[in-house]
């Protein structure tokens, strides 16, 4: 075993850092800093800059614009992206759809969809969950019927993040209701401006509205928009959600937010002592940091392809459980540091850099943490809830 980063890796880190420093627009970074999920126009700008450098999609195969980086370098790259408050909003397309297209899509689909995704010109949303099918995804009802050369889709989706700002959506639909639920599902691509497709924003407790309901009323798409084989949607969705879970350690997010908690705690004074220097808060930070260090090595073990004696899907579920809880803990540290200043409601309409209302200024670090703390309540719900992940572990490791 060799646990170290090579001198070349360190040089690579310096190169990435220098590039980001030179090219990340400060207003984009500020937007990410305060609102953790930036305006998608900012994401498009940044994605274009990265793709021009050839770094638009490091995890894709080389022939589609990916890098030849080792897993360790991809890790370094993501760490630097996050540490600099650069946007990482396009993950539904980049991390979820793209691997499916590359593995199961047609050559025509890859040529049509991957390049504009890479350049940040086309953004994607995901339409899986339905009002009656959350954790129980196989139970979904939205149907797609083949009529000549077109599929006609009717149904309803929910929790479709960023849908109103996206250009395309990938949907899981039922193309056959006569077979076992999982066998009747297909994976289909729908432009968000398709006639019959409407969205309704859902306001969430963190004062945001990135979630949406999607209503599909006789939406027609060419049959070429079906990915892979009809009836294989469940398999592709599982493939994709496993991709999501690998990133669901949210390691880079967690490291960034932990650093932010420390930054806040070093700016706040309690009885003339910096909060970060008080024993009780320092220990609280250290307790989370210990688990964060373990989480990083959990990610590194998977990235380095360690041969685990347990089922890898179960290991990935463990990562999802710990990573999602960690999101709640690091943001909790931020509001712990803020104390009474965490109670003020900052809403989405606020433009970072402006004063949120008339009146005395509150420190800029008060903007965002409470929203983020509330937002991360969802981390243990989406992408397979904590309960589902525990069921997976029980089943795969213990044969439950």
């Amino acid at each position, binding site marked *: 075993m060799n646990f170290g980063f090579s001198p070349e890796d360190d040089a690579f880190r310096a190169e990435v850092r220098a590039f980001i420093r030179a090219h990340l627009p400060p207003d984009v970074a500020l937007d990410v800093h305060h609102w953790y999920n930036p305006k998608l126009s900012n994401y498009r700008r940044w994605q274009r800059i990265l793709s021009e450098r050839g770094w638009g999609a490091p995890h894709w195969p080389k022939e589609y614009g990916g890098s030849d980086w080792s897993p360790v370098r991809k890790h370094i790259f993501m760490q630097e992206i996050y540490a600099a408050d650069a946007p990482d909003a396009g993950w539904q397309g980049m991390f979820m759809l793209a691997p499916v297209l590359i593995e199961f899509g047609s050559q025509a689909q890859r040529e049509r969809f991957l390049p504009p995704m890479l350049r940040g010109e086309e953004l994607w949303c995901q339409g899986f*969950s339905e009002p009656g099918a*959350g*954790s*129980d995804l196989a*139970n979904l009802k939205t149907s797609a019927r083949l009529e000549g050369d077109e599929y006609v889709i009717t149904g309803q989706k*929910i*929790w479709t993040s960023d849908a109103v700002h996206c250009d395309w959506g990938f949907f899981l639909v039922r193309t056959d209701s006569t077979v076992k639920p999982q066998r009747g599902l297909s994976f289909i691509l729908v432009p968000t401006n398709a006639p019959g497709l409407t969205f309704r924003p*859902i*306001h*969430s*407790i*963190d004062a945001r509205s990135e*979630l949406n309901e999607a209503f599909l009323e006789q939406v027609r798409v060419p049959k070429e928009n079906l990915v892979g084989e009809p009836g294989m949607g469940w398999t592709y969705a599982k493939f994709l959600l496993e991709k999501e879970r690998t990133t669901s350690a949210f390691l880079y997010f967690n490291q960034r937010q932990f650093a932010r908690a420390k930054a806040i705690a070093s700016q*706040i*004074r*309690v*009885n003339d002592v910096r909060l970060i220097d008080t024993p*009780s*808060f320092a220990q609280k930070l250290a307790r989370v940091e210990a688990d964060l260090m373990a989480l990083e090595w959990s990610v590194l073990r998977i990235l380095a392809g360690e041969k685990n004696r347990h089922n890898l899907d179960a290991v990935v579920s463990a990562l999802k459980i710990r990573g999602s809880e960690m999101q709640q803990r690091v943001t909790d540290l931020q*509001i*712990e540091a*803020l*104390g*009474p*200043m*965490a*109670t*003020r*409601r900052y*809403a989405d309409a606020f433009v970072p850099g402006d004063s*949120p*209302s*008339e*009146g*005395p200024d*509150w420190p800029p670090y008060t903007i965002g943490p*409470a929203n983020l*703390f*509330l937002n991360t*309540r*969802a981390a*243990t*719900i*989406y992408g397979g*809830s*904590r*309960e589902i992940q*525990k069921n997976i572990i029980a089943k795969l490791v213990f044969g439950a």
Partner: protein
Amino acid sequence: MDLRLTDEQEMLRDALTRFIQECYSFEQRRAIVAGGQGFSAEHWRTFADLGWLALGLPEEAGGIPSSFIEPALVAEAFGSALVLEPYASNIVLTSRILDRADNATLRHEALSAMTEGKLRVALAHSEQQARYELDSVRTTARPDRTGYVLHGTKFLVLDGPSAHKLVVSALLAGSIVLFLLDRHTPGLKVYPYRLLDDTLAADVVLEDVHATDAEILTRTDVVALLEEARDRFILAKVAETLGGMERVLQISGEYARSRSQFGQPLFKFQATQHRLAEMFVEVQETRSILYCGLANIDSGTPSRRRAVSAAKVVAANAGRIVGGLGIQLHGGMGMTEEYSVGHYFKRFITTEKLCGDTDYHLARLAAA
């Protein structure tokens, strides 16, 4: 020891329950939030008519003397529906400060108007640098020919936007004194904002604010007075949290029965049952610590401090568990603004961070 409510207390509780059922559904509450005033003036009049604004206040000011059980019953009922009206900040916090003030004229005038529902008073004491320390005041009152000139900035003045008058603390010759000022006093500006739980607070800026001797509310043992009143406010918020948690328990149980996944109600999964049971345990413990607080709220400083800090800590922890699991159990629905459970979580978190967080109260408990 007799933990039964008196007949009068039972009647009060029934009246509160009726009001909540008739006037405070989640949708009715949303309409009040959308109104932007942070509360309903109509409801406030109703509270006055029903005598709820007089509970625990002196008879000569139109009050109905009572133990702290009555205000706690009000707070618990209000907590169950996330009532927005500034009950605890007025009738538990500032009315207590007024009741114990030196200035008999101000005291009588203000309390009489408060019990009638005609006057609301907010406490403008906290400042940014203070965090939770009651003795950290930088606002100054400088004597001049006609009285005093005040300078300073107050923050997180709870229910400040709906208040007619403010109790303002300031340093005068090295000691903290309290003034009672009209919110329209020249030089005094109120900047409202919303808190996470949809109540309103304000920053208050005082620039060349002239005050007279007659506006000095009290100058004796101000920090001790503020601490005692804050302890009562905290205990009312504990009761409010308890009421909210009972409601979350009920909502979650109903949801677990009605929502099906994998062909059966969530309720049938043992994981769900255990979660609901864990929430139940927290609610039981919070009711117990509330009783501990009620038993000690009128006792001497050390035991009052101990009991109130313990109550704050226990309720804060329980609120996180019950509110957090409540959201988790509801899945994505729990994250939405249109559904109630997330709002309870936000109220619990807001309460946790006001008037001393868990670290602050653990330290106070340890030192008491």
